[in-house]
């Protein structure tokens, strides 16, 4: 049981950046834009979140708590949204090919983050780009209710529940809130309905008086911002507030695959991210007697499996937005 709890706990921590990326991409794809630049936007968010806190501390001294969190969130969101804005301008206004533009955004974002990461690190006296201990503590996995920890000392069950639900860093809870908000927005609001209409059939939405391009822009840019926060999670939580070269390392691509796994549903994305997060750390918890290198392949093999499975049993309801991947030209409909 202890082992299982530890595995689930680690799976949540590993799955959260995937969840952010997946949610951002779901929002983007619902508007009919297939943005393959998630990896790039996560990289941009990763460096921006870290750099935001790093420079703010240079000006203001050591930061902790809510201010530090807000600065990181804001910087990561803006930078990810900026990447998405480039993509949006090229595909929505200038009608460039979505696939190639997304791939370019990935190349650009990786270069952008590593470039500034190295520049800032080499300019610092320690040759490291790291935030203060206090700021690091903001992103640490602290118990939400310290009172519960005392109780947990005597009762195993309370210990497990406390560990599984109330002892993560704040970004984990934010991710779940974002997922639930997004599910509510897409399924229960008028604007969400309009957005889905834009992704399914922009010509019909246009005829119904929906401002197609405005919806596409907003969804793409906000989606990019959410992806950026996912990247910030990696630099702040996974890498403990220190810039690590190539730190996102393919997680953005898994997020793109998770969108398919979650069949474009934000609430199923929570489950998907947990599964994939679990697969990526499985080897530390459940020995199967196979080489480590093969363990590391599990998330990718699982993605392939899911890709094939979802394509074999195409269901109308849980499918990609019909117009996703194609640009909308009003005068050519």
């Amino acid at each position: 049981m202890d082992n299982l709890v530890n595995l689930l706990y680690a799976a949540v921590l590993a799955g959260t950046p995937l969840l952010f990326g997946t949610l951002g991409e779901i929002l983007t794809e619902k508007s009919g834009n297939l943005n393959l630049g998630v990896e790039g936007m996560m990289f941009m968010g990763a460096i921006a979140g870290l750099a935001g806190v790093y420079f703010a501390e240079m000006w203001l001294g050591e930061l902790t708590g809510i201010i530090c969190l807000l600065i990181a969130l804001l910087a990561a969101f803006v930078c990810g949204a900026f990447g998405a804005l480039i993509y949006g301008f090229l595909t929505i206004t200038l009608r460039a090919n979505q696939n190639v533009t997304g791939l370019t955004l990935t190349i650009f974002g990786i270069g952008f983050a590593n470039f500034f990461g190295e520049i800032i690190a080499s300019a610092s006296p320690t040759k490291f780009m790291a935030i203060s201990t206090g700021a690091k503590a903001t992103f640490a996995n602290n118990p939400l209710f310290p009172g519960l920890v005392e109780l947990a000392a005597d009762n195993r069950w309370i210990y497990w529940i406390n560990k599984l639900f109330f002892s993560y860093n704040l970004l984990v809870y934010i991710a779940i809130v974002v997922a639930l908000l997004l599910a509510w927005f897409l399924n229960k609001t008028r604007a969400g309905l309009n957005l889905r209409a834009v992704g399914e059939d922009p010509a019909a939405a246009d005829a119904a008086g929906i401002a197609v391009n405005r919806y596409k822009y907003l969804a793409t840019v906000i989606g990019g911002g959410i992806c950026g926060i996912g990247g910030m999670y990696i630099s702040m939580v996974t890498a403990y507030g220190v810039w690590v070269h190539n730190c996102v390392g393919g997680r953005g691509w898994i997020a793109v695959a998770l969108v398919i796994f979650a069949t474009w549903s934000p609430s199923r994305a929570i489950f998907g991210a947990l599964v994939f997060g679990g697969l990526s750390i499985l080897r530390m918890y459940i020995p199967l007697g196979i080489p480590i290198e093969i363990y590391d392949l599990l998330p990718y093999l699982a993605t392939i499996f899911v890709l094939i499975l979802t394509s074999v049993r195409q269901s109308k309801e849980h499918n990609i937005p019909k117009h996703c991947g194609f640009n909308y030209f009003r005068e050519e409909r």
Partner: protein
Amino acid sequence: MTEQAAVVAKQHEPWLRIAKRPTISQRKAWSIRAAAFIAAILCGALLILLLGHSPFAVYSEMIRGAVGSKISLVSTIKIAIPLLIAALSVALSFKMQFWNIGAEGQILAGGIAATYFALEWVGVIPAVALFLLMFAAAAVGGALWGAIPALCKAKWNTNETLFTLMLNYVALGLIKYLQAGPWQKPGGHPQIAMFEDAARLPKVFGVHIGWIIAIVLVVVVTIFLSRSKHGFETAVVGQSPNTARYAGMNVGRVLVRTMIFAGALAGIVGFIQVAGADYTLTENTAGGVGFTAITVAWLAQLNPLAMVVVAIFIAVLEKGAGRIQTTYAIPASASDVLIGIILFFMLGCEFFINYRLILRKEGKKRG
């Protein structure tokens, strides 16, 4: 009344509207592309300026670092060879709108296959036969890696972008497994042994013969795309699968067949890298070539001859970025940023080739 209506209509006319160009002269199209390219370079110059260096000095140092001496020229060409062949591979799949981003994995699969023979068969058979065997094995390995997603796409319409991407990681994982397990060289580190001399590609004019292979393949792919029935079918499937179906083509078969060719080309890159450049197989054998090749293919508008120029240009950029890292302490990732910016501009400028902007004409003044 009518005049009033005209005024009202004028007020409602947008400041700027776009209209499709019926035709555009090649000269005008290329001058738009050139302008976009210059704008991208200026954008990069701005970035250099912000870092506190002179853009002119940095750019010229990059060019000097890439082609200034025989040694640097040789290593620039060594970067360009795999880029060019991989770009040919990517172009084949992109031609039929099969968004293959798995060239990286196909290169590694080819590298694994070639390395098997280089390690196990060296000295057993004559060198020429060994090279041919490695070449063929690499092509088959790459083709296999490319054909799997194509088969699934043909049969179930599986998303090829993610499938090919995931196969990259699988190939990388296999190499790590081979390094630490079956093919580990004696002595602690997880490494594969260096190839013996008999399994190393010979050199012509100071560069391994990969460059000859590359030139031959450029010609082959050009002929394939513009002169062969297969190439024509590939293009038709890309432009409109329904048209292809209506014309009696088996879309699935074209898909798989073209991906076998594309995968084989990428596999050959793997062979050239292990036997010509690195003399062993590592997880850096592909080293991002499969991804950069996408930009090469796209910048060259999927035209094989243009790819030669673009591949050399990107190689100069990458080699030059290495130089400015040592001279100016500008990180080598600068080349990725610059490639990204150039591509953004090139993608954007196509719009101005296909459409023209019409400003609202200043009409009569109101009142």
